[in-house]
């Protein structure tokens, strides 16, 4: 019901939206809650457990009842607070957790069974018969639980994340926050002022009191106008600070376009902010608390502050016949505002007996209480208990005030606990709970407008002092300064169920029962009853519940303590905090210089860490990847193959102590390596397991270039930095990653030299470039590097050029190799080629294997210390019984080998206690015409020729295999030297 002439809504802009399929009208500036109330709609939801009818309780984000689903299809967002969602033309909303309709909800039958569904009932039953829990009970419970529903479709909206930095973050733009921001901004500080509401001003927009010579709302708008004209101020409305983190870092969620239909142009729905502030003023206000009494949950029962907000800001009276129930003076303020607006106030029930009512324009019941309500889906009457007995009053709205709880939440996010103040019967923030934060105004227990304005100035000055800035003078305007007189009243005595947590259906009785069952710790009570675990996290109910618990256990409230306040202050969508992660945004993509050409050739790309590498290069007529792979293996074994190996880590190491460093990080000796030569090295972690392997070339006396595996490049770089900075800063050596600076290609096969000799500017031969030689070469006038190394066992080279020439060189290599009967090869062929030679990768050195395990124990030089040497010698790491590297061949040529299969003695039962090892790598060897594998077998080197069982339970494969040396081709290594 609108009340003419009041409010801050824009009556010139009519807005139409729908709720549960019915279209309603409202005005710009309305929330769904205010517009529905204006249309006389009181029933907006159903509670979680008993499906009791629910109407709006509050006018803010603390709302436990009026939760709706907004939008359609993939854009539907469940559990949106109707008190926060602004209306716009075309907005579609619907109710939740009710079937077949909100008015008539079948599940409301739960309420009839409530005596059997009290606190923790499910822990005591549903146990028989045993299988019924999962088969029958749990599915029913799951289906009944939950509130809104996800659409089930992938997110189609845009979300963003951003960083902001400032001198001062002011949280809350009520009278306190505005004054704090103004004080700091006028003094030149960089200020960010955030407020959850669409309209800054806080309670000033909901109250009738004047500030200075203006209404509070007009004064607030004036301050906002001044601030918005200042370059050092950033105003962020519709932004809620959700969490406080270390280093004065604040998380905040901004509703960027949830208040209008416009989603084009990449405009995000919401943005998650990380705000780093040198100082913070918290002016988050307070949240009004209800009073518990029988049937206090009926739609039409609201907090008094919410009634004033709907009346004064949104021009809506939530009822025609309103009663007010309170234990403090705010109740009277509510009654006065209603009367002034022409609303019929049936009575004011003040729990305080000694209250001075003056000449009230409404009936006052002093020392009285509301003890029950009547009605079905909406409030129709209340029962008032006075000294003379119980009286029924016909009302359609009851405004309740049990006092105010300062919004201490953010001050507790860093493990601070709030402090109880007896005079206001509420918890306030504990001094210093968050470093570099000043708490002011209502959230610090300061309640009058005048006191808040002054506290805001004081907080602004305190912030300036902390920032080391000089203060500017700010005049504090005149405003109401009424005292806050309150007599505690948490629950009205009586029969029936008096509700605390409206969403989770927790009553005073539930709390008392929990205490009787010895769930006396506030944490136990919460977990047993689910008090405060609903979507509002008990913002309006937790303190009341713990007051009941304190009473039930004979303790004082501060002794009982609060549960832990945790981020986020309001729920934040996963899409917002995970913005950028959807699809390929989750991790960077690294492309080699040959990437484009490789894709053009139709090669399927596979992920190798962050890199992409070709799996194989398919040719017309090939039906399976195996055919392509076999052909590519043939290139290398019979002609020449080309492969981009740029993804391997490359670290340039220079300095007089470079050799020392290498000797220390590798198990073997590098300081004796001659210039122009390459050596294979094995690198351990300090715990003795293998970290990585690769080749390192000596380009000059003080100059090496190390290669790492693709996977370990970052870890090795960090390791070298650790060794040089933390263990041996006295060594003169410097290094840098050059992985991206050089494009490098393997040219492998009997015709490798023939290919190169058409390409490099000066021909090479076996004498100038023997196996493991390296040095500069000129390629079309470009200085590159040539390494004669092989990961295939064939005569092979790796040719490196600066990256900008990589794409051109790859094209050239592919063309030349094809002319020689070869071509490019991918990861599948590379894997077969290296298995055939027994070369290890991270399938073998997977993090648990030692040098001993991979048959390289003797590579740990006895002549010097190195990282990992001492721990590698631990008795448990050199036991003969450890699984060690072997080759595996099927006894029958068509026998299958599978990676991850386990090894057992022939004929042994394939159970854990008989486990002998596992298969680490497998591939089909075209040369041998069968599958081959590498694996780890207990006492492997002593078991050559033994026939054992390979069992792959999960793939259903069992194969009899022969243990062999892990080299299948050219065991003497003649080809590589040819």
């Amino acid at each position, binding site marked *: 019901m609108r009340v003419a002439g009041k409010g801050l809504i824009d009556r010139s802009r009519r807005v139409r939206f729908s709720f549960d399929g019915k279209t309603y009208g409202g005005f710009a500036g309305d929330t769904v809650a205010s517009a529905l109330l204006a249309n006389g709609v009181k029933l907006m939801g159903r509670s979680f457990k008993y499906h009791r009818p629910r109407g709006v309780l509050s006018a803010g984000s603390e709302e436990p009842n009026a939760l709706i689903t907004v939008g359609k299809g993939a854009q539907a967002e469940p559990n949106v607070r109707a008190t926060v969602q602004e209306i716009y033309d075309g907005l579609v909303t619907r109710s939740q957790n009710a079937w077949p309709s909100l008015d008539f909800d079948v599940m409301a039958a739960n309420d009839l069974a409530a005596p059997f569904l009290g606190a923790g009932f499910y822990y005591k039953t549903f146990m028989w018969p045993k299988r019924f829990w999962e088969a029958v009970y749990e599915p029913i419970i799951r289906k009944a639980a939950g509130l809104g529903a996800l659409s089930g479709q992938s997110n189609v909206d845009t979300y963003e994340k951003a960083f902001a930095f400032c001198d001062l973050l002011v949280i809350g733009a009520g009278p306190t926050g505005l004054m704090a921001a103004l004080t700091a901004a006028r003094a030149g500080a960089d200020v960010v002022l955030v407020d959850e509401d669409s309209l800054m001003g806080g309670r000033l927009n909901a109250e009738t009191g004047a500030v200075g010579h203006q209404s509070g709302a007009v004064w607030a708008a004036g301050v906002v106008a001044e601030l918005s004209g200042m370059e050092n101020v950033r105003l962020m409305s519709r932004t809620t600070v959700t969490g406080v983190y270390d280093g004065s*870092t604040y998380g905040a969620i901004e509703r960027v376009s949830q208040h209008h239909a416009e989603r084009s142009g990449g405009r995000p729905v919401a943005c998650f902010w990380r705000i780093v502030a040198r100082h913070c003023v918290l002016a988050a206000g307070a949240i009004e608390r209800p009073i518990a009494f029988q049937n206090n949950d009926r739609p039409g029962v609201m907090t008094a502050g919410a009634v004033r907000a709907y009346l004064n800001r949104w021009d809506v009276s939530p009822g025609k016949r309103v009663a007010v129930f309170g234990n403090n003076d705010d109740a009277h303020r509510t009654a006065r505002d209603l009367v002034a607006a022409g609303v019929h106030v049936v009575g004011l029930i003040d729990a305080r007996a000694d209250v001075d009512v003056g000449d009230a324009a409404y009936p006052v019941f002093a020392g009285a209480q509301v003890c029950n309500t009547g009605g079905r889906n909406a409030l129709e009457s209340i029962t008032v208990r006075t000294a003379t007995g119980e009286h029924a009053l016909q009302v359609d709205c009851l405004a309740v005030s049990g006092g105010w709880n300062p919004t201490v939440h953010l001050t507790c996010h860093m493990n601070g606990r709030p402090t109880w103040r007896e005079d206001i019967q509420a918890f306030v923030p504990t001094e210093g709970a968050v470093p570099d934060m000043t708490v002011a105004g209502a959230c610090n227990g300061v309640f009058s407008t005048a006191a808040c304005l002054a506290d805001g100035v004081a907080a602004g000055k305190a912030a300036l002092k902390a920032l080391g800035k000089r203060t500017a003078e700010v005049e504090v305007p005149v405003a109401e300064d009424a005292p806050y007189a309150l007599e505690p009243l948490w629950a009205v005595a009586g029969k029936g169920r008096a509700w605390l947590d409206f969403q989770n259906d927790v009553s005073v009785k539930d709390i008392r029962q929990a205490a009787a069952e010895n769930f006396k710790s506030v944490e136990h009570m919460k977990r047993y009853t689910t008090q405060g675990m609903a979507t509002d996290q008990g913002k309006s109910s937790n303190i009341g519940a713990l007051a009941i618990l304190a009473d039930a256990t004979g303790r004082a409230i501060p002794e009982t303590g609060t549960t832990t306040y945790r981020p986020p202050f309001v729920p934040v969508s996963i899409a917002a905090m995970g913005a950028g992660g959807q699809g390929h945004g989750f991790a960077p993509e690294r492309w080699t210089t040959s990437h484009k050409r490789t894709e053009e050739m139709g090669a399927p790309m596979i992920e190798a860490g962050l890199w992409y590498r070709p799996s194989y290069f398919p040719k017309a007529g090939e039906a399976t990847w195996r055919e392509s792979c076999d052909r590519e293996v043939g290139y290398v074994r019979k002609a020449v193959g080309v492969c981009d190996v740029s993804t391997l880590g490359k670290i340039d190491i220079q300095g007089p102590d470079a050799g020392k460093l290498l000797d220390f990080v590798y198990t073997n000796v590098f300081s004796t390596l001659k210039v122009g030569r390459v050596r294979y090295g094995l690198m351990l972690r300090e715990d003795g397991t293998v970290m990585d392997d690769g080749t390192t070339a000596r380009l000059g006396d003080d100059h090496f270039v190390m290669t790492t595996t693709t996977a370990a490049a970052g870890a090795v770089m960090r390791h070298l930095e*650790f060794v040089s900075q933390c263990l041996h800063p006295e060594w003169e050596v410097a290094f840098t990653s050059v992985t991206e600076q050089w494009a490098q290609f393997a040219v492998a096969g009997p015709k490798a030299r023939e290919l190169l000799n058409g390409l490099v500017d000066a021909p090479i031969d076996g004498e100038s470039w023997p196996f493991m030689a390296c040095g500069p070469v000129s390629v079309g006038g470009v200085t590159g590097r040539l390494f004669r190394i092989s990961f295939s066992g064939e005569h092979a080279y790796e040719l490196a050029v600066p990256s900008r020439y990589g794409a051109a060189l790859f094209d050239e290599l592919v063309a030349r190799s094809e002319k020689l009967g070869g071509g490019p090869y991918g990861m599948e062929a590379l894997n077969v080629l290296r298995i055939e030679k027994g070369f290890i990768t991270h399938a073998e050195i997977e993090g648990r294997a030692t040098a001993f395990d991979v048959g390289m124990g003797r590579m740990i030089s006895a002549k010097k210390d190195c990282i990992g040497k001492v*721990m590698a010698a631990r008795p448990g790491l050199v036991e003969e019984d450890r699984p060690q590297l072997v080759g595996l061949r099927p006894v029958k040529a068509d026998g299958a080998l599978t990676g991850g299969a386990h090894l057992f003695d022939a004929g042994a039962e394939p159970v854990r206690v008989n486990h002998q090892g596992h298969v680490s790598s497998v591939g089909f060897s075209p040369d041998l015409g069968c599958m081959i594998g590498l694996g780890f077998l207990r006492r492997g080197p002593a078991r050559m020729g033994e026939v054992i069982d390979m069992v792959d339970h999960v793939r259903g494969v069992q194969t009899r295999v022969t243990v062999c040396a892990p080299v299948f081709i050219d065991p003497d290594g003649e080809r590589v030297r040819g």
Partner: protein
Amino acid sequence: MRIDCPLCGARDRREFYYQGAAVMLARPAPDAGEAAWDAYLHLRDNPAGQTRELWQHEAGCGAWLMVTRDTVSHVISGVEMAEDVKRAAL
């Protein structure tokens, strides 16, 4: 959490790699014995309070840092170049 890198200034924690207690600076001699090596690599004081630990500004300058930090409050009270700490101990 923000760490004041001596070379780069205050940066968000996400730029840094954490390794562990700063005891890793004091690598035992190869012949120090089983107990010393076990203590170096495995055993930790693990205080609930102030501790010294090694971080690397991996996504920044690459410097290894010795950070003095409280494991209960997360307050960082000192950041030094690990290299300087190690040199002073040599």
